[in-house]
């Protein structure tokens, strides 16, 4: 659905900042999150987890646990089938280990009991006989031919011979003559970088309530980014028809990609089926860290050649990602996006993915891109320093634009990178003075965005209000933005529209809330649904006026005769038409079902000032400005919130956050005390500048905005710290001990 010809129209509702519909419920504690679900006769489910990084499960004796008073069910892998689909089997195996425990925290058994205390006591009575195996948690170590093998037979079909069996994926992208490109360079820099695995840091732990009836029907309430995908996975794992499992998404306390899969839901369903009672499972924070899906950790080599005047002549990157104990293709997105911001004649990226004894990776905003672009943007910054060039000018000189053959293949259409760079250059932040031990860094960021399967249903109530039913959990303000687009299209006040998120049996399939897709795709479907309802309203009015339907048009909430030849009639409002809909043919509705494409890629630029204390190694973020192309900002508060939130998560990733594994392969810091995410007192105000370069693939020009903001902070902050220290940093996070270590090596 292309950009409207009247795409430059004056919007009346879109672009305003109405109060968020979920705001009062959330600040008063009334909103229902995953852990708030209850049911009569409900049992408490708890999970026994592997204390080893890698171990063969020789036997599990659950007899004593089952004999404990109050215990209603115990399940192990033997209570699950073997799905045909390998990716579903991986999800199931991640929820409950079969032959081997593959990482610290991997579930091996679960108990449902009448109280949490009994369930925990029962877990202690389960006897697991382990054969401890060698483990590996570092990606570079895992790729070595003699590394401990996590799983066998999981490599893609086209991998070269001679690699460790842990290496599962291999991707290459690029174009041009690399040798010729590097030969043109006046300066070539080649560096290696590492980034730690980080967690999405959502505040709400995973929680669900499952109820399987004796007739085979099931109900599942859970916090998720996609109730339909949960239904698909759980129905496959439970070997039941999708129609027999209804999944209802709760309010969600953060997801960022980490709630696009299941961890506890199949276990709760299995316990419920075995016990005949509803079963609730709520993860502890320790469990969230040890056994949900953090992002990949990475090891990357980058080589870039540049002329004296700042033109990049060739660029190469080799990326190595680990995504835990199961095959993970995230490196493909890193390899595609690494150089996306640049117009290059010669570029090549090579991506490798390896298995390790860590939890199965889950998506985290723009999966794979932040760590790739961190390495690239660090080298670009170092080249600017070496050649005494302005880093913004260099990026402008090399910026991708409409007509650029992207580093991952396609030729770009209208994109907003240059506009964001121009905005950054013109912003007072870029020219502000810096003090001692302070540095300024910048980075470009990129994400693909996509649309996906979407259903929207719109119903006109008899009083002239409008109800919208959609199927994506409201993770970033979608109920407000969807209501705004409906109000805009219908020409009625925002307050007349209410959008709800439906369960899996109340509307057709909707893809997971990911890929920054909802405002784009659900918005697009909402506009189409509204246009269908408008068409029906015009048809009804035409019958009343006894003229052709084509002689009636819609404007500002009214049906009007299209001109003098159509006759003279008083315009009829939506409210008037809805009030008599029973007499004119019945309820009026619009709906639209689509697999939306044309999401339009997104670019951003981040600018940050930091001060590093040379005595402690602590970094303070002094000033931060985000520039991003939003296409069209439907609700600017939410767009700014996405930009600020991404920056904050990136600040944590750059400065403190990391999964720390000991020599024993066990996670050393599974708590928010030891895994340090930024809090308000750590942060300055995150300033935002929204650019609006319309996306040709959406009627209002919308681009997704949710993922791009986490891409630039890693490099922007590393560049700022490196300039503050006059010492290039090559590893994240740049926590105080690492900065002190780097400073000591400088001396």
């Amino acid at each position, binding site marked *: 659905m292309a950009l409207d010809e009247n795409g430059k129209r004056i919007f009346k509702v879109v672009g305003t900042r109405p109060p968020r519909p979920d705001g009062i419920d959330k600040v008063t504690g009334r909103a229902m999150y995953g852990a708030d679900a209850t049911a009569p006769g409900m049992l408490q489910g708890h999970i026994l987890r592997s204390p080893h990084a890698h171990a063969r499960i020789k036997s599990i004796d659950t007899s004593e646990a089952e004999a404990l008073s109050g215990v209603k069910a115990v399940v192990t892998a033997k209570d699950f089938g073997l799905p045909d689909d390998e990716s579903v089997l991986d999800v199931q195996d991640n929820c409950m280990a079969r032959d081997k425990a593959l990482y610290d925290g991997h579930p091996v058994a679960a108990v449902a009991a009448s109280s949490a205390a009994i369930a925990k006591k029962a877990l202690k009575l389960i006897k697991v006989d382990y054969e401890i195996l060698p483990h590996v948690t570092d990606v570079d170590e895992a790729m070595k031919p003699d590394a401990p093998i996590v799983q066998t037979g999981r490599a893609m079909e086209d991998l070269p011979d001679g690699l460790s069996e842990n290496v599962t994926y291999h991707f*290459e992208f690029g174009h041009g003559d690399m040798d010729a490109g590097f030969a043109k360079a006046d300066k070539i820099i080649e560096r290696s970088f590492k980034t730690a695995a980080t967690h999405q840091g959502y505040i709400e732990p995973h929680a669900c309530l499952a109820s399987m009836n004796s007739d085979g029907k099931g109900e599942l309430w859970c916090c998720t980014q996609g109730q339909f995908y949960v239904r698909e996975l759980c129905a496959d794992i439970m070997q039941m028809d999708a129609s027999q499992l209804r999944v209802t998404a709760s309010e969600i306390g953060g997801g*960022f990609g980490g709630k*696009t899969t299941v961890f506890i839901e199949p276990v709760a369903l299995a316990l419920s089926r075995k016990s005949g009672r509803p079963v609730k499972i709520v993860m502890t924070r320790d469990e969230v860290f040890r056994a949900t899906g953090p992002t990949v950790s990475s090891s990357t080599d980058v080589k870039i050649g540049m002329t004296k005047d700042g033109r990049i002549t060739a660029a190469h990157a080799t990326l190595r990602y680990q995504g835990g104990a199961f095959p993970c293709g995230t490196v493909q997105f890193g390899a595609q996006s690494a150089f996306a911001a640049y117009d290059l004649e010669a570029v090549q990226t090579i991506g490798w993915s390896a298995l390790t004894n860590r939890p199965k990776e889950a998506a985290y905003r723009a999966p794979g891109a932040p760590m790739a672009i961190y390495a690239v943007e660090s080298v670009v910054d170092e080249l600017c320093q070496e050649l005494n060039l302005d880093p913004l000018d260099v990026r402008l000189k090399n910026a991708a634009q409409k007509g650029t053959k992207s580093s*991952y*293949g396609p030729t770009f259409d209208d994109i907003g990178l240059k506009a964001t760079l121009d905005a950054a250059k013109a912003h007072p932040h870029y020219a502000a003075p810096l003090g001692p031990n302070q540095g300024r860094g910048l980075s470009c960021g990129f994400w693909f965005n996509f649309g996906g399967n979407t259903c929207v249903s719109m119903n006109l109530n008899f009083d002239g209000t409008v109800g919208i039913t959609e199927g994506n959990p409201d993770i970033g303000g979608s109920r407000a933005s969807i209501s705004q687009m409906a109000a805009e299209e219908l020409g009625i006040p925002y307050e007349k529209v209410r959008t709800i998120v439906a369960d899996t049996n109340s509307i057709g399939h909707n893809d997971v809330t*990911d890929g920054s897709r909802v405002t784009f795709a659900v918005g697009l479907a909402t506009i189409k649904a509204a246009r269908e309802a408008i068409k029906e309203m015009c048809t009804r009015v035409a019958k009343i006026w006894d003229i052709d339907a084509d002689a009636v048009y819609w404007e500002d909430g009214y049906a009007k005769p299209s001109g003098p030849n159509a006759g003279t009639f008083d315009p009829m409002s939506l409210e008037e038409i809805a009030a008599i809909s029973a007499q004119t043919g019945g309820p009026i509705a619009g709906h639209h079902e689509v*697999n939306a*494409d044309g999401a339009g890629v997104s670019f951003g630029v981040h600018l940050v000032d930091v001060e590093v204390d040379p005595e402690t190694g602590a970094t303070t973020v002094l000033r931060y400005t985000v520039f991003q192309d939003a296409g069209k900002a439907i609700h600017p508060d939410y767009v700014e919130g996405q930009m600020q939130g991404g920056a904050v998560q990136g600040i944590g990733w750059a400065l403190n956050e990391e999964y720390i594994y000991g020599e024993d392969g066990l996670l050393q810091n599974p708590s928010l005390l030891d895994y340090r995410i930024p809090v308000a007192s750590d942060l300055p105000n995150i300033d935002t500048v929204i650019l609006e370069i319309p996306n040709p693939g959406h009627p209002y020009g919308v681009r997704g905005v949710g993922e791009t903001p986490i891409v630039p902070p890693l490099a922007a902050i590393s560049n700022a710290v490196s300039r503050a220290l006059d010492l290039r940093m090559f590893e994240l996070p740049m926590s105080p001990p690492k900065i002190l270590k780097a400073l000591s090596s400088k001396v």
Partner: protein
Amino acid sequence: MVKVAIWGSLRTATDGQSEVEVEASNFKQLLDQLAIEYPALKPQIKRGVSLALDGKIYRESWFTKINKDSEVVLMPYMVGG
């Protein structure tokens, strides 16, 4: 005939060619034809691919029309967070 750009590591399945030509007027025909003419592409097509048509990325959409002069790029199936 439609020219289809193949990403680097997939070229082992197309005899090293970075661009192949197949007879197709929509995505389904294109994928079917690729699988017939280059059987080694089948595992990746089964795992999932996206297609970029004149710069716009499509994840599925079998019946999207392809013009003879369109730029078509085979890409891995996109996911997000």
